[in-house]
């Protein structure tokens, strides 16, 4: 017997929905093996990871808090990926947005400024992320530089830039020399939605982003252009669309969303600017985007699931003494299976009877 992938005449709508679920199932099986090898009880581990967080209201809130930046960033990234444009640097754009927005918060700190501060921060955050994302986009359009490398490398630049600011000019003078800014004023803070929970207004913004993206991608001519460039670049050119403009546009949009997620995170749950404001949201969002099939609604579900692994991972670290890195391993395994299962949408598996000398059967 051997396996063969053969193309389907039409993409399978059933598999398109089932593929992420199959990928999750395969990841869970792999995780069970991994736990067993580490000498942990897999049943307990799965319970701590995937069930316990869902039974506790506070953890549910935390899932929403984690999912908010993931979803926002992933929706932006999905626009790039649908068009076969590879923005890998959302982490950097996230930080750039956080820094750009924090500038207003830091400079108005304690000055009693009015309610214009938060909207201005959000605007500047999105703008900062967009401008930062345009650097690799322009390098690609002008010089043909690979956006994969340039956008990735700019992540480290952003990290170091943030590091410099919070250790240097923006450091809180009363902060006991910790590398962080002063806590933001209330007018510079994203309000929370419920008492006793960290769920904030940014989660609603993420839902709005999902809905807008779904309409944009499916219903507008710009969205069609993005899908067209991804599906058949020569047809896009024949159609009269400008591929270079599209690179700039998708990078700017995804950068803006990443930047917005960054400033919302800083002005929301964190409350001040400091290193390590992102536990790799920009990179995890890549997984979210693909797990969600580059579909905004899918991304919302995938974002919640990945957030669950973050919260579950923290719980497991405490309850079972397993390293937090295991969460990242799990996320990596998940991405691997997602991409593998994707091929089933346009291909089907066929078992071929393995006969090395099939030609010489009975006369």
């Amino acid at each position, binding site marked *: 017997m051997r396996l063969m992938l053969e193309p389907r*005449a*039409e*993409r399978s709508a059933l598999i398109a929905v089932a593929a992420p679920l199959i990928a999750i199932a395969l990841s869970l099986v792999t995780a069970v093996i991994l736990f067993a090898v580490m000498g942990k009880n897999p049943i307990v581990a799965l319970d701590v990871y995937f069930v316990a967080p869902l039974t506790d209201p506070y953890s549910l809130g935390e899932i929403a808090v984690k999912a908010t930046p993931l979803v926002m960033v992933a929706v932006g990234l999905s626009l790039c990926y649908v068009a076969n444009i590879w923005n890998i640097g959302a982490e950097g754009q996230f930080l750039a947005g956080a820094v750009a927005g924090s500038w207003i918060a830091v400079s108005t700190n304690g000055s009693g400024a009015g309610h214009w501060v938060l909207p201005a921060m959000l605007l500047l955050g999105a703008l900062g992320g967009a401008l930062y994302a345009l650097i690799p986009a322009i390098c690609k359009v002008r010089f043909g530089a690979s956006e994969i490398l340039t956008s990735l490398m700019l992540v480290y630049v952003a990290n170091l830039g943030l590091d410099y600011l919070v250790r240097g000019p923006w450091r809180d003078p009363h902060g006991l020399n910790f590398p962080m800014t002063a806590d933001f004023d209330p007018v510079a803070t994203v309000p929370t939605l419920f008492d006793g929970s960290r769920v904030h207004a940014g989660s609603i913004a993420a839902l709005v982003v999902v809905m807008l993206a779904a309409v944009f991608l499916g*219903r*507008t*001519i*710009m969205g*069609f252009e993005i*899908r*067209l460039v991804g*599906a*058949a670049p*020569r*047809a896009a*050119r*024949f*159609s*009269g669309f*400008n591929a270079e403009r599209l690179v700039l546009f998708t990078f700017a949009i995804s950068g803006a969303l990443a930047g917005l997620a960054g400033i919302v995170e800083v002005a929301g749950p964190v409350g001040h600017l400091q290193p390590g404001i992102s536990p790799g949201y920009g990179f995890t969002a890549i997984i979210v985007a693909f797990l969600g099939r580059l579909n905004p609604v899918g991304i919302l579900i995938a974002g919640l699931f990945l957030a669950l692994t973050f919260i579950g991972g923290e719980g497991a670290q405490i309850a079972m003494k397993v390293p937090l890195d295991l969460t990242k391993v799990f996320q990596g395994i998940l991405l691997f299976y997602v991409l593998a299962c994707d091929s089933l949408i*346009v291909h089907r598996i066929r078992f*071929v*009877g*393995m*006969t090395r000398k*099939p*030609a*010489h*059967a*009975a*006369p």
Partner: protein
Amino acid sequence: MANRCITGTPMPNTFPSAGSEPVAPLLRAAGISKRYGNCIANDAIHLDVYPGEIHAILGENGAGKSTLVKVIYGLIQPNAGELRFMGRRIVLAGPAAARALGIAMVFQHFSLFENLTVAENVALGLPLPEPFAAICARLAKTALAYGLPLDPRREVWRLSVGERQRIEIVRALMQNPKLLILDEPTAVLTPQEADQLFVVLNRLKNEGRSILYISHKLDEVQRLCDTATVLRAGKKVATCDPRRETAASLARMMVGADVDRVKASRARGASVPRLVIDRLSLSADGPHEGRLKEVSLKVCGGEIVGIAGVAGNGQDELFAALSGERLAANAETILIDGRAAGLFGVTERRRLGAAFVPEERLGRGAVPRMKLSENALLTGHVASGMVKRGFIDKRETLAAADRIAATFDVRKAKRDPEAASLSGGNLQKFMVGREILREPGFLVVSQPTWGVDAGAAATIRQALIDLAGRGTAVLVISQDLDELAEISDRIAVIFDGNLSAPLAASAASREILGLLMGGAAIEPRACPQEEKHAVDA
């Protein structure tokens, strides 16, 4: 001329019904059936291929020709029926097994790596490891022996379609096949190239090899083939000797009804040029591109001008320059309805009333994994009501797709399928129909019936003639001289980026066109006269 290659060849192996001594078939396909869901692609088909014969498989698109040969080549497992090769029952696990037996196939769409050389491509396709130098030597020897000149060290992207086909044929021949399957091999060739191919095929036949020859072109089948098996809607209609049939009788067997001849009647009065190309030059833009050298041409409303030429002589560049995918050096080199459009992009030219049908269907003219309604939007987004304030009106796009399908008889499995699920002929009807329904002032279409069956080809040609009859200027770039002769008013020839002066179709014999396509000098007398004729017409 047509029978030159064949008349000299005795017919050692006619089919048993001819009454000669029965010869065992090389390949017997008995009762082959293949179902896809409810659709029966092959219904109990019986086929005997004798040693040393060229056996045609004739049929419209969707008749089941490709399915049948894919079964024989081991790509598809039949649901029922058996294959016998040299008298023995065979079960093919895949193409490798077929090749091991001596069955080789040349596909209509080549499987070549463009950035590799000829020899590297051949080496990749060979089953057994072999020193590269030995492959090169064997390649050169095989190519030479069969009169298929190929430079083993050239990269494939530098080669014309005809040359690429040679690679596939040589690659197949290097495995010394007993049965060679060719899927629409002349769809991409000039008459001269086709003639060369026929010489090679007859040579192979005389060596005792058998050839399965899939084609829509009846005259070719009559010229070349000893036997023809006609398929219609998955069933075998007949096996016959094509030389004892008429083109009309073969067509009737294929289609099940008489094929309408193209009606040339159209009202033509004095008309103004709607497309003027004035000394259009295009430099080689990167190594993959060819050049255009001061190409000039006028196409008037109501006329069809054909551009003949061997593939790779600047047709692609001319198409791209006219469509706006590549821009001219200055605006005045291309006038569309009198407006300088040389610097306009595709969308702006479409707004001027131009329409384009490129040679490549999948990936350029249509997106395989998008629905037909979205493919209608591909060129329809420019005008019409499909886009309102940036939003797509899905009812409009679907209605447009329905309109195209209804007007041009596009056959599909459901209302709005993905383009990839349509057969080549139906997708081509869709693409041509999509542009024609926009009622363009000027239409350029490249290879309008490339690999399309007789019925669809007739529909498309008639549609082009009718479009010209309504006052549109139509420019047809084609390698099919019969097609150009059938529909064109004037024919120009492109060679190495130079465009000849157009000849009146009545004066453009195959011989003259063939010479021009080979780069022979143009008789200067013909040019001004023809130019004048065109303007006067």
